[in-house]
């Protein structure tokens, strides 16, 4: 994205009637996109009779914390949020470091076999996780890693696309001369990687970190099959299974879901720029 946003000659009706119409349309659409989430949050604070009222209120008339309190009493929701946070953080750390090192080595070192390795990585990048999930699960099971952190993480330790993203950046933005100069000065390879290359890769790695975090944060099928113990659920799994319980009403369901949204929304608002850059530069989520 350009540093200084020039005024677009293509801009129509920056002011005036056309502009008003455009703003009105965009305003309504934005509202409609947010409405399901707004209702979810609002329902979390409603009393049972108000939940049945038509038209549905956006701001509860008699806001109550009853739903939230009972959800927190009945479910280890904070535990699930913590599990998700740990899982997403560890997965991100692993994906960022493996992508950084592999992308750099594949891009800057001339060894026999590297084209083949790179080809395999690119080829497997298009294979959806769901395709190889079952054998992966069987391995985790036979290794006795069900309901353990390593078992959960195994699915989310590497990202082919991350390796590709770093590789692309290394090829286009890190000059060979720079590395050669450091070598002539007697710098070791590890030092070069840690002190010269890594700082240069901050941009793409930041974007990758956000992508990786969200990928793990919203993971569903894998945590659902690997973590089968109520205490080890991730947030998404805990929430999904909580709603299948017998005594759950809309108010409490909304309360749980609204609480679950808080970390996502917070993280999104903090990382929006990085995230947008990550998605824009890459496009692809695995």
């Amino acid at each position, binding site marked *: 994205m350009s540093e200084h946003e020039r005024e677009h000659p293509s801009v129509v009706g920056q002011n005036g009637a056309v502009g008003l119409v455009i703003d009105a349309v965009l305003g309504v659409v934005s509202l409609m996109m*947010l409405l399901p989430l707004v209702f979810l949050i609002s329902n979390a604070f409603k009393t049972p009779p108000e939940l049945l009222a038509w038209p549905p209120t956006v701001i509860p008339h008699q806001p109550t914390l009853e739903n939230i309190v009972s959800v927190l009493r009945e479910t280890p929701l904070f535990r699930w949020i913590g599990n998700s946070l740990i899982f997403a953080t560890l997965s991100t750390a692993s994906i960022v470091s493996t992508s950084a090192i592999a992308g750099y080595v594949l891009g800057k070192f001339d060894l026999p076999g590297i084209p083949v390795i790179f080809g395999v990585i690119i080829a497997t990048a298009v*294979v*959806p996780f769901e395709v190889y999930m079952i054998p992966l699960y069987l391995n985790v099971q036979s290794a006795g890693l069900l309901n353990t952190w390593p078992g959960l993480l195994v699915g989310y330790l590497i990202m082919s696309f991350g390796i590709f993203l770093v590789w692309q950046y290394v090829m286009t933005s890190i000059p060979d001369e720079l590395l050669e100069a450091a070598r002539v000065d007697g710098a070791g*390879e590890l030092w070069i*990687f840690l002190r010269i290359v890594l700082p240069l890769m901050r941009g793409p790695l930041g974007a990758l970190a956000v992508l990786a975090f969200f990928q793990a944060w919203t993971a569903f099928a894998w945590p659902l099959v690997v973590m089968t113990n109520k205490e080890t659920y991730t947030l998404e799994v805990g929430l999904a299974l909580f709603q299948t319980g017998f005594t759950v009403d809309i108010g409490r369901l*909304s309360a749980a879901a609204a609480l*679950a949204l808080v970390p*996502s*929304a917070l993280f999104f608002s903090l990382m929006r720029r990085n995230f947008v850059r990550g998605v824009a530069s890459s496009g692809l989520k695995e």
Partner: protein
Amino acid sequence: MRTTPKWLFPVLALLPVLGLYGCIRVYPIIETLRLSLFQWNIISRRKPFVGFANFVELASDPLFLEAIFNTTIIAFSVVAITIPVALVLAALINTRQGLRRSGVYEASVFLPHVVSLVPAAMAWKWIFDARLGPLNALIGLVGIPAQSWLFDPVLSLVCLIVLCSWQAIGYAVLIFLVGLKNVPEALYEAARLDGASSFQAFRHIAVPLLKPVMLYVSVITLISSYNIYAQAFVPASDVQGAPGRLVRVLVLDMLENSFRNYRVGYAAAEAVVLLVIVLILTSAQFRLFRDRSRA
């Protein structure tokens, strides 16, 4: 004064990553392909080789056919809704470039793409709820009788399409916005000098230039819609715990076959079908891109 050989660093650095890669990516993919040729009930020790029998059986398995039919309908409908809506939204947001509210529009449209799946699906489930949901009340205002959205097979398909499109639009808008920013200003200026209106300029300059981007977004959206699971899983269970009528999608059928029916080879065959679909879509995309660059 270097004493270590040149290859030492790259090999040492790459080995652990490649080891991981082999264990958790390459091997399971190969294992999926292999398992699809065996009839393996996970409990039994025997694992007879059956060739393509699993695939033959899939071809006449009503549940699988229903799943693949539903998934295909969902995937193509989501694309058909998402691409035009996102294109219009991106064009409108683009006219607001540089204004503070453009960021607000972008964020509101994009948020559904990044919030956790399960709470988002729960929100929609409430909207579609037959007794409490605002949708039935809303259509009631114009005299349409209440529908049991999540129980009727056709309507629940519609619900899933709405939910998935709602999530997919933000992503497409973002990519289109990037594409629109890359349209050279000179082209717009030339059009303006020729007396073209803004709409004409958009229609005849931006849209043709965006075609490769549209193609890319379509394929990515198609592929990710073929993988949906949580979106079908969450609305499937009723608030009172009774399982509602659910839309059977590919991944759901696959997981049910492996984890409920313990038919691992059979489920692997389904995974292979999913892989083939994704490969066909991806290679179609590559082919279209190549033709375009040659033309």
